[in-house]
């Protein structure tokens, strides 16, 4: 088994499929509900398959922070500029193969948007580095 992180972005993704990048507050309430229910379905499905590790959503509000030097407060840079890549949340999964990870990501990306049509949202798929060299057998 191998772990993968499926990342959803608020922005900073490749060019969206035309007609799918309408902000969510411009959808109908029913479309929002259908979308959120689908997210729940994806998680249930992963749990059912024994592949689910974690899912978290992130607030779009945040800042960059770094060490400011001895005795000085942390230095901050933010809020994030409009052009910056912005992560919206993630699902961590533990699956048999990269193919299966891509399949799960594609399923997540098929979440319904305006008009109930699939959003085709880009999902960033990142393999976890393991702690140890893998021992097979």
């Amino acid at each position, binding site marked *: 088994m191998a772990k993968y992180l499926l990342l959803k972005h608020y922005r900073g993704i490749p060019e969206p499929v035309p007609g799918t990048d309408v*902000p*969510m*507050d*411009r*959808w*109908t*309430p029913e*479309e*929002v*509900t259908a979308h*959120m*229910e689908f997210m*729940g379905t994806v998680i249930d499905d992963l749990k059912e398959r*024994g592949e689910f590790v974690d899912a978290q*959503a992130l*607030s*779009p*509000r945040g800042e960059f922070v770094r060490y400011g030097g001895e005795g000085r407060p942390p230095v901050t840079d933010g809020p994030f500029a409009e052009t910056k890549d912005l992560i919206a949340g993630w699902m961590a999964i533990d699956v048999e193969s990269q193919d299966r990870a891509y399949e799960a990501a594609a399923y997540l990306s098929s979440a319904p948007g305006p008009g109930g049509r699939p959003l085709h949202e880009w999902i960033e798929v990142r393999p976890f580095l393991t702690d140890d060299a893998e021992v097979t057998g």
Partner: protein
Amino acid sequence: MSEPPRPDRAWDGTLRDLGPQVLGVLVRRGADFATAEDAVQEALLEAVRRWDAPGGAPSDPKGWLVTVAWRKFVDARRSASSRTQREIRMTLEPPPGPTEQADDTLLLLSRCCHPALSPASAVALTLRAVGGLTTAQVARAFLVPEATMAQRISRAKKTVAGERFGEPGDVRAVLRVLYLVFNEGFTGGPTGRADGVDLAAEAIRLTRQLVDAVPDDAEAAGLLALLLLHHARRDARTTAAGELVPLDRQDRSRWDTAAIAEAVALLQRALARDRLGPYQAQAAIAALHDDAATAEETDWPQVLEWYDELDRLEPRNPVVALNRAVAVGHVDGPLAGLRLVEALPADVPRRDAAAAYLHERAGDLAAAARRYALAADVATSTAERTHLTTQAARVRQQSG
């Protein structure tokens, strides 16, 4: 794939109830809290090992646990210091009666909610030492690894061990911690219940124990009433899919009327003592909401009077000021409420949501949609974020 559930052993629940009681006995005998808590945990583990064997369960489980925990406590102290060991007198006491039981609960709660502890530490320690939950259960409830929670509890015990205790009972501090436990369960939504620990119910159970211990404390009764009044609406607060349903749109037939009746009776007795505090005032507001058959029938002038009272009790509390502004919006019109909202600092939680709500009531749907979207941006939970996004969508749809 999952294993068949193991049938509950008859004494599983007993152990959970007995753990805190036994700890109370040890602490009352003069054992220091941190060492006693470890000793009780060890005794509970030993009980799990031994009582499972045929004929292994003792006829007096509590007496058994007290004996074993006390022995473990003495062993721990002996190994820690032979000098202090000599100061410990083995005492054999009769099992405590109900009064002592209530005193013990207060004693334990005041240690677990000591003001030297951070809120998160006090909550964790309370749930384990007084609530009788395992570290694993507390960890699951707060979505952190078990080792992290074990460490948090262990550090909390060290902090408490270094504090001096006089009279048992800073009741105020205990109330604050129980309120936090409840809120944690309340905002957790339905997913918070999935892993078997219902923090809201747990907070109510512990607050009941506290009220038994300090029956004359009006604020303890006020807190219990407040928690019951909020808990009574829980089933109506979310849809099957986990979406939030605001108070004015809830199906009121799904409210727990027995809980509301109990809370109102509690509150009336508390208010009659004429020792008003913030929990009683908040409970009075919740009771007015729960008392209305429909949202339109809410007695907003009286709600506002209670917010005025709360504002006097907790001046400069921006959350109170924001809620009061919404009540003003219902009594004097949405624009009057909006003026108060906009005068509050921008970083007051839910300020945009309140402004959106009042704009909508004032008929300015474009402004309402804009503020709901802003509110969604700063929401602190997924459920709240989804709810506010949906509100924005709904208002935008209405404005066409």
